[in-house]
C-alpha cells in the first residue's frame, strides 16, 4: 500500500493504482470518455485531467496536470481532482470535441445515455465556441451494426474491444490528423469484412456513433396488421437486462413485467425462449452422445451463438464440422412455431410474424442466414435487441415499473432452469450435462449443479465421470478466448469431447444487444456476474431444472418430432454452415 493525499485528505491505496483507481477507492468521481476498464486505458480524451504533485526527494515537486486514467500513484503524492484550472481544461476539451461532433442529439439513439452529453451537461458546455471544418463521413448501414462517424469522438473504445477482447480487429483508426476516422481496411463497409456482428463495439461506444439496425417500426407495423399473427419469444437473458432500460439496478429480474409489457404492446403471443433452449439441449446432447458412440467428429462445439458461428466460419473454417448442427434456440423457436404450431392452428406460415427479443446483434444476421427456413419462409422475421424492446415499451407509453407481473402464454410458456442459464457462459454446458448424465447413467440425477463450468472466467475446463464414460468439457466466452481454446485443441494440448463457446465475454447476459451501461458503472460492477446471478437464481428456484423434464418439450416430441434427432427434427431443427475464410 502507498499513501496519497486526494483533495487534502489522506488515503492508503494499493501499489500500482492509477490516480483514477485511487480516486474511485476514495469515492471521488473523475470524468472519463476514452477510458474503459481493462480494455482501453490510453489517456487520449484528456477529460480525466487532474493536478498532481509528487515527492521529489524530501519535498513536494511542482503541480502538474496528468491524465488520471493512466498515471500511477507514487508514495506521498498529492492529487487535486477539482480545481478551477482542471474544470477549465476539461471544459475546453469538451468544446474541442463538440467542434467536430454532429450535435444531432434530439434524434440520437443514445440521447440521455451518452457519456459526452452527460459530461457537457455537468460542465455547462452547451455548444462549442470553436467553429470550423468538420471531418467528412458517411453512414455505414449495410450490416446490423451501423456506424455514423459524424458522432465518433475517436476514443478507440470500439477499436480496443474488437482487437483486444474479441481479437477480431476489423475496425481501427485510418489516415492521420484531422482526417483520422475509425473504419475498416480500405474504408470497406463492415458487411464486407470478417466482422461477426457481435455488437461489443456498440456496447463500448460512449456516444451514438455505433448502434444496431432498428427493426422496431417493422415489428409495430406487424402487430397492427390484423391479417398477421405476430408473436414474440424472449431469450433467457432479456429478463435479466430489461429492467435497466427503466431505471432498475443491473441484476434485477423483471420477467413478469417484461411479459406484461409485451402483452400490452399487443403481441398475439408472448412466449419463453427458455423452452427452445430446452429443446436445443435435447437435440444437442443427443447429437453429442451419437457422435461419441459412432466416432463422429469431436470435440463437438455448441452452435447457439451466431457471433461465434460467424467467427468460426471466418477464422476457424476447419472446425465447422465440429459445430453442432442444431439451430440456435431462437431459430428453433421460429421453426417450431411456423411448422408445428402453424399446422396445429391451421395457419399459413406466411401469415405468422415471428419476433425474437434477444440481447444480441448477431441474431439480426442469423435470421437472414441460408438453411434457416423450415417452413419455406424465414424461421424468424425480426430479431430485436433488449434495447429495442425497451424503446418500444417507452414509445408505447407503457409504465413498465407499474405493471403487474404476467405469465408467458401457452403452449410455449414453460422453460426449465437449464434453459434459463443458457444466457450465462457455461450455462449451455451445464444444461447439456444435466441431460447427458441422466441419459448415460439411465437414472434420475440427484445433484443437478455442475458448478465447475460456472463463472466469468474466459476459459473453463472440467472432467466428469458418467458411469464408464469420462467426459472432458471446456467452455469459452468471447471470441478472443475461443481463439485461445481452439488453438489449444489444434495443438493437441487439450483433449475434450464437448465445448461450449459464446461469442460475447460472459455469454448473452453481456451481449451486444444489452442495455448500455456507461464506463463509470462498468468500472465498479461486473455486469456479466451481476446479470448471470439472476439466471442462476431463477434456476435454483425452479422445481423444473432439467430440459428433459419440460413437459412442453416432451409434448413437441410426442405430437410432432417423434424422437430427438429424428429425420423430422433434422429437417426442422438443424442447419448447416459455410466455410467463409478470412479475406
Amino acid at each position, binding site marked *: 500500500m502507498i499513501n496519497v493525499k486526494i483533495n487534502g485528505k489522506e488515503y492508503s491505496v494499493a501499489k500500482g493504482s492509477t490516480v483514477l483507481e485511487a480516486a474511485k477507492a476514495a469515492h471521488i468521481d473523475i470524468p472519463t470518455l476514452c477510458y474503459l476498464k481493462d480494455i482501453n486505458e490510453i489517456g487520449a480524451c484528456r477529460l480525466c485531467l487532474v493536478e498532481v504533485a509528487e515527492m521529489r526527494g524530501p519535498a513536494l515537486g511542482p503541480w502538474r496536470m496528468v491524465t488520471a486514467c493512466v498515471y500511477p500513484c507514487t508514495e506521498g503524492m498529492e492529487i487535486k481532482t477539482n480545481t478551477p484550472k482542471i474544470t477549465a481544461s476539461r471544459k475546453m476539451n469538451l468544446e474541442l470535441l463538440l467542434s467536430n461532433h454532429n450535435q444531432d442529439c434530439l434524434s440520437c439513439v443514445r440521447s440521455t445515455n451518452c457519456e459526452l452529453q452527460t459530461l457537457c451537461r455537468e460542465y455547462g458546455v452547451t455548444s462549442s465556441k470553436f467553429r470550423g471544418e468538420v471531418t467528412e463521413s458517411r453512414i455505414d448501414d449495410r450490416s446490423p451494426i451501423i456506424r455514423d462517424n459524424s458522432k465518433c469522438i475517436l476514443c478507440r473504445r470500439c477499436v480496443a474491444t474488437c482487437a483486444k477482447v474479441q481479437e477480431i480487429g476489423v475496425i481501427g483508426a485510418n489516415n*492521420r490528423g484531422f482526417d483520422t476516422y475509425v473504419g475498416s*481496411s*480500405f474504408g470497406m463497409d463492415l458487411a464486407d469484412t470478417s466482422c461477426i456482428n457481435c455488437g461489443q463495439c456498440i456496447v463500448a461506444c460512449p456516444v451514438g456513433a455505433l448502434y444496431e439496425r432498428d427493426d422496431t417500426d417493422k415489428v409495430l407495423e406487424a402487430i397492427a396488421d390484423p391479417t398477421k399473427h405476430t408473436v414474440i419469444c424472449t431469450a433467457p437473458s432479456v429478463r435479466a437486462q430489461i429492467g435497466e432500460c427503466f431505471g432498475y439496478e443491473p441484476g434485477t429480474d423483471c420477467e413478469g413485467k417484461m411479459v406484461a409489457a409485451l402483452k400490452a404492446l399487443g403481441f398475439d403471443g408472448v412466449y419463453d425462449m427458455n423452452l427452445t433452449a430446452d429443446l436445443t439441449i435435447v437435440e444437442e446432447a443427443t447429437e453429442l452422445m451419437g457422435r461419441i458412440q459412432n466416432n463422429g467428429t469431436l470435440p463437438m462445439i455448441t452452435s447457439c451463438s451466431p457471433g461465434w458461428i460467424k467467427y468460426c466460419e471466418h477464422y476457424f473454417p476447419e472446425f465447422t464440422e465440429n459445430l453442432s448442427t442444431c439451430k440456435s434456440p431462437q431459430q428453433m423457436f421460429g421453426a417450431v412455431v411456423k411448422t408445428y404450431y402453424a399446422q396445429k392452428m391451421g395457419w399459413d406460415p406466411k401469415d405468422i410474424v415471428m419476433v425474437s427479443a434477444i440481447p444480441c446483434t448477431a441474431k439480426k444476421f442469423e435470421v437472414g442466414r441460408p438453411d434457416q427456413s423450415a417452413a419455406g419462409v424465414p424461421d424468424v422475421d425480426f430479431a430485436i435487441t433488449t434495447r429495442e424492446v425497451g424503446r418500444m415499451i417507452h414509445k408505447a407509453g407503457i409504465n413498465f415499473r407499474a405493471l403487474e407481473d404476467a405469465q408467458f402464454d401457452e403452449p410455449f410458456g414453460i422453460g426449465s432452469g437449464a434453459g434459463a442459464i443458457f444466457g450465462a457462459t457455461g450455462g449451455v454446458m451445464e444444461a447439456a450435462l444435466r441431460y447427458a448424465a441422466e441419459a448415460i447413467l439411465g437414472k434420475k440425477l440427484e445433484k443437478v449443479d455442475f458448478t465447475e463450468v460456472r463463472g466469468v472466467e474466459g476459459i473453463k475446463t472440467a472432467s466428469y465421470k458418467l458411469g464408464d464414460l469420462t467426459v472432458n468439457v471446456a467452455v469459452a466466452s468471447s471470441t478472443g478466448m475461443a481463439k485461445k481454446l481452439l488453438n489449444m485443441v489444434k495443438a493437441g494440448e487439450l483433449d475434450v469431447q464437448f465445448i461450449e463457446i459464446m461469442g460475447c465475454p460472459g455469454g448473452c447476459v453481456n451481449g451486444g444487444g444489452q442495455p448500455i451501461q456507461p464506463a463509470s458503472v462498468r468500472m465498479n460492477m461486473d455486469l456479466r456476474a451481476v446479470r448471470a446471478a439472476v439466471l442462476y437464481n431463477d434456476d435454483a428456484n425452479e422445481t423444473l431444472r432439467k430440459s428433459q423434464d419440460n413437459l412442453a418439450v416432451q409434448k413437441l416430441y410426442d405430437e410432432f418430432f417423434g424422437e430427438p434427432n429424428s429425420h423430422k427434427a433434422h429437417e426442422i431443427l438443424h442447419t448447416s454452415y459455410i466455410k467463409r475464410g478470412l479475406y
Partner: protein
Amino acid sequence: MKKKLTTVAFQGTKEQEEKLLAVIEKHAGQRGAMMPILQEAQEIYGYLPIEVQTIIAEKTGVSMEEIFGIISFYAQFKLNPDGQYAIAVCLGTACYVKGSGDIIEAISQKLNVPVGSTSPDGKYSIEATRCIGACGLAPVLTVNGEVYGKITVDDVDTILAKYQ
C-alpha cells in the same frame, strides 16, 4: 492527409510474391516487424495494394485493418503505384505561397486524376509533396525527377505536352 484508394488494376507477378513471402519469413516472430515488412513490400511492388496487404495479413496473422491503419497513417506508404509519368508538385510553404496549390489543382483537372492517385491506365500519377528544397525556384514541380521551376498555371499545358 486522406489517402486515395488504389485505382490501378493489380499486376503482381509470381516472382514478386515469392520475394514478398521471403521478406515475411525473414521477419517472422520479430517484434515491430510490420514497418520493415511494409517498407520492403513497397520496394518489391512499388506500392501496397489490397492484394499485397492480404498476403501480409494472412502470413503474419495481423488483421487487414491494422495493416491498412499503418499504411494510411504514414505518408511514405503508397496505395497507388507511380504513373509512367510521376508528377510531384511541391506544396511546401514557399511554393504554396507562390501558388503551387492552383497548379496542382489545374494538373489534376486537366488529367482528370485526383491528387494522390494514379490514372487507371497507369500513365499519370499526381502527388503533393512536402518541401523538396528548391525554394529558390518556387513554385516547383517534378516529372519523373525532372525539375520545372518558377512555373505558373499557364505553363501546365506546355509541360504536360511533353509527356503524352
